[in-house]
């Protein structure tokens, strides 16, 4: 990332960008208003989102964070498309709370359906304003002018955007009803484009939050309790304070050490003597009994189909653990941190330190992934508390064990399903109760009268939160596994059974596409060889996945996976494929190995050596079919994860006769 972005305030940034020139302000007041729109309003003036400089450089401002989904690339495409400029002339400033409009956060697959149209409307409005500018200058009917390749071109005239905006200070309201470039006319959108600043990453030059160093910076480590909910009773830091260069920050149960180097901070931490009171807490053994606190309110008569499904807590394991560099200086706090919610982290800092909003700035460099696991600002707050106290820049990088222990997990859960079918194989009733894992994807996409689905919120023994696709992964697993069980009981092919009960044309579309690509044919399973299929809809996108497996003495080989995905107009097929295949591979981990082991407030496997995630040798042959159409684009970073576990479980059943209802699977 540019260092300019790091050091300049918004006003000076705009000056620097335009050489004193700001585009598209009818009066400076309009601009000022846009800048002043802190709070949670979404500014509706062009200059808040898109800036065209006198050098022709286009700068986009967005509160979205780049965490590997490559929104920086897709937003670049959207602006280049509407403004008719080459991709190389567009820079996106992301997730710097002093520079960008408020944004709730980067989650829920919202960037593509909401932020992309927002910056496209701003860019299209800017393009039209540039045409107006040229029409005025040349005293010509604007209908005779077109925007092309960074220029306004008339019958006899041509001018680069930079020339037109030189010495101007203009802004306009975004035309909310402006026609965006139609799907059929896309020249930049819809086309493959590599990660726009990929070179920064393959050279190791990109500075993640954990790579940032400031002059005079010290390294902090936090004293962690021995177990959850432990209370600090006594603290003795004398030995530490006698060490040269090490400082202790102590405030209630918060105890941190800061030293010139990480190893000195770590050495100091060990020398702290602390006593804690601990409490007895549950373990995995009691987990599902704890979560299922009530019986389903609706029950079918005995003799119908019933199933109980479970999933353990799992961890996000972003390869870059939580990290922050905080700098309390001249009455202002600046924090660099990896996060999906820059403004959320800002609020946490405001609250934790009692500072006014105007005195806190959060900058999120492109981050080493999140998957829903970086919605909170723990490391940012901890580093800031130390910097606030010591008055020097402070870096804090969580260890992998801290990330496994003190972040939050994808909720564990129990699902109970009851269903019935008529003698034609049509679903007649559907009762689906989810305990704790969540309501995402709980809706019944198949045709059945009056389905009853309910999410029961219960108290979770472990801290839990968001995760890629949230509960849709587990709800989809339970539903798609159960339907496979019903199809088997009826002696129907599982694909035919699904299509027989489905009128949602989008799900039908991916299901038949995946089946066709897979070469699905009803097969006699057994003798270790089997196939499975599953589908789902979530966040306005649809997925179907088919899997072929061979199982020998409990040893699983995934022979191949075919997945079909549809999310409306494809913004960038290359990045979409990355998301679909990546989700699928991540989903293999949750299906086969990942589970958080805990007892008495401690995580028992808080190491990568004891928490297995997918690796190179685990990856099967994957065919990915992306279905394009002219419908509005939905997000795609989450939904592709929801069909792999049930497809795989169903395949294993057909291979072995062993029905797997618990995530992760235990094959032997």
């Amino acid at each position: 990332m540019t260092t300019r972005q790091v050091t300049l305030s918004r006003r000076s940034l705009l000056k620097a960008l335009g050489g004193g020139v700001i585009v598209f302000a009818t009066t400076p007041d309009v601009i000022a208003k846009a800048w002043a729109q802190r709070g949670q309003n979404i500014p509706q003036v062009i200059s808040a989102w898109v800036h065209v400089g006198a050098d022709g450089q286009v700068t986009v401002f967005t509160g979205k964070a780049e965490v590997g989904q490559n929104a920086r690339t897709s937003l670049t495409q959207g602006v280049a498309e509407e403004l008719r400029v080459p991709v190389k002339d567009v820079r996106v400033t992301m997730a710097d709370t002093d520079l960008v409009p408020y944004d709730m956060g980067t989650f829920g697959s919202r960037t593509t359906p909401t932020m992309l149209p927002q910056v496209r409307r701003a860019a299209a409005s800017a393009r039209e304003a540039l045409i107006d500018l040229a029409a005025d200058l040349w005293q010509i009917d604007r209908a005779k002018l077109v925007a092309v390749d960074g220029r306004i071109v008339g019958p006899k005239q041509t001018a680069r955007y930079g020339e037109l905006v030189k010495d101007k200070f203009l802004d306009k309201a975004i035309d909310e009803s402006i026609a965006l470039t139609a799907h059929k006319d896309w020249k930049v959108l819809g086309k493959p484009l590599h990660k726009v600043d990929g070179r920064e990453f393959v050279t190791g030059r990109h500075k993640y939050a954990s790579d940032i160093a400031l002059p005079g910076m010290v390294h902090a480590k936090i004293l962690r309790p021995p177990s959850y909910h432990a209370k600090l009773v006594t603290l003795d830091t004398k030995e530490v304070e006698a060490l040269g260069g090490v400082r202790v920050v102590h405030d209630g149960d918060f105890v941190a050490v800061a030293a010139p180097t990480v190893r000195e901070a770590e050495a100091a931490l060990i020398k702290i003597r602390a006593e804690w009171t601990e409490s007895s807490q549950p373990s995995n053994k009691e987990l599902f009994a704890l979560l299922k606190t009530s019986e389903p309110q609706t029950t079918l008569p005995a003799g119908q189909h019933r199933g109980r499904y479970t999933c353990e807590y799992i961890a996000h394991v972003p390869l870059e653990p939580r990290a922050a560099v905080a700098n309390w200086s001249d009455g202002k706090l600046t924090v660099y941190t990896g996060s999906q919610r820059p403004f959320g982290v800002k609020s946490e800092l405001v609250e934790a330190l009692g500072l006014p909003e105007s005195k806190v700035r959060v900058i999120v460099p492109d981050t080493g992934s999140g998957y829903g696991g970086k919605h909170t600002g723990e490391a940012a707050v901890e580093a800031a508390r130390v910097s606030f106290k010591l008055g020097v820049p402070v870096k804090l990088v969580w260890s992998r064990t801290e990330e496994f222990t003190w972040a939050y997990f994808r909720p564990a859960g129990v699902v109970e399903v009851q269903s019935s079918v008529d003698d034609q194989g049509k679903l007649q009733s559907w009762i689906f109760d989810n305990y704790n894992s969540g309501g995402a994807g709980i809706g019944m996409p198949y045709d059945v009268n009056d389905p009853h689905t309910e999410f029961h919120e219960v108290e979770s023994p472990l801290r839990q939160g968001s995760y890629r696709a949230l509960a849709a992964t587990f709800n989809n697993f339970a539903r798609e596994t159960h339907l496979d069980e019903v199809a088997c009981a009826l002696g129907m092919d599982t694909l035919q059974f699904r299509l027989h009960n489905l009128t949602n044309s989008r799900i039908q579309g991916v299901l038949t596409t995946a089946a066709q690509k897979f070469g699905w044919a009803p097969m006699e399973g057994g003798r270790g060889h089997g196939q499975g299929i599953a589908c789902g809809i979530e966040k306005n996108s649809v997925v179907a996945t088919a899997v072929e497996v061979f199982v020998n003495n409990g040893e699983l080989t995934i022979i191949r996976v075919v997945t079909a995905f549809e999310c409306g107009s494809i913004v960038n097929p290359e990045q979409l494929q990355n998301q679909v295949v990546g989700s699928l591979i991540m989903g293999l981990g949750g299906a086969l190995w990942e589970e958080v082991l805990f007892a008495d407030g401690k995580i028992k496997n808080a190491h990568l050596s004891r928490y297995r995630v997918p690796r190179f040798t685990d990856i099967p042959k994957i065919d990915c079919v992306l279905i394009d159409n002219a419908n509005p684009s939905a997000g795609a970073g989450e939904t592709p994860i929801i069909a792999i576990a049930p497809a795989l479980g169903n395949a294993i059943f057909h291979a072995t006769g062993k029905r797997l209802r618990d995530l992760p699977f235990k094959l032997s």
Partner: protein
Amino acid sequence: MGGAVELVVNGEKHQVKADPQTTLLEVLRDEIGLTGTKYGCGESQCGACTVLLGNEHVHACVTLVEEAVGKPVTTIEGLEQDGNLHPLQQAFLDEDAMQCAYCVPGMIMSAYALLRRIPHPTDEDILQHMHGNICRCGGYPRMVNAIKRAAGGKP
């Protein structure tokens, strides 16, 4: 802490103040300022900190500075020559084999060691060799393609 130790990193000599028992990772990142080498797990499980000691790829998070004395260290910053990307770097770009890309420096360094040992690896060679590197975004298939491309084979 400790006396000075001399390290040769990417062809340059560095006098390092750290205790010889300090990890190579900490020295590379915090003392020399080469932050392309990443921390991921601290226990030799994820490969984000992969560098070369001589021709051997090692995990810098479990390698002590004293082990690196007298052996040239190569990090991701040492691959680009005069503004020209190494073929592996170029191949990762061309295959768009990255999402959050935090793992990518370690991936490239691990693959770099592989291609020095086996210039034309089979798929199985690649998978076995790269097993110690985690891409949590699940970018493995494109990374295999990138390594094949860099080796001169078809991706």
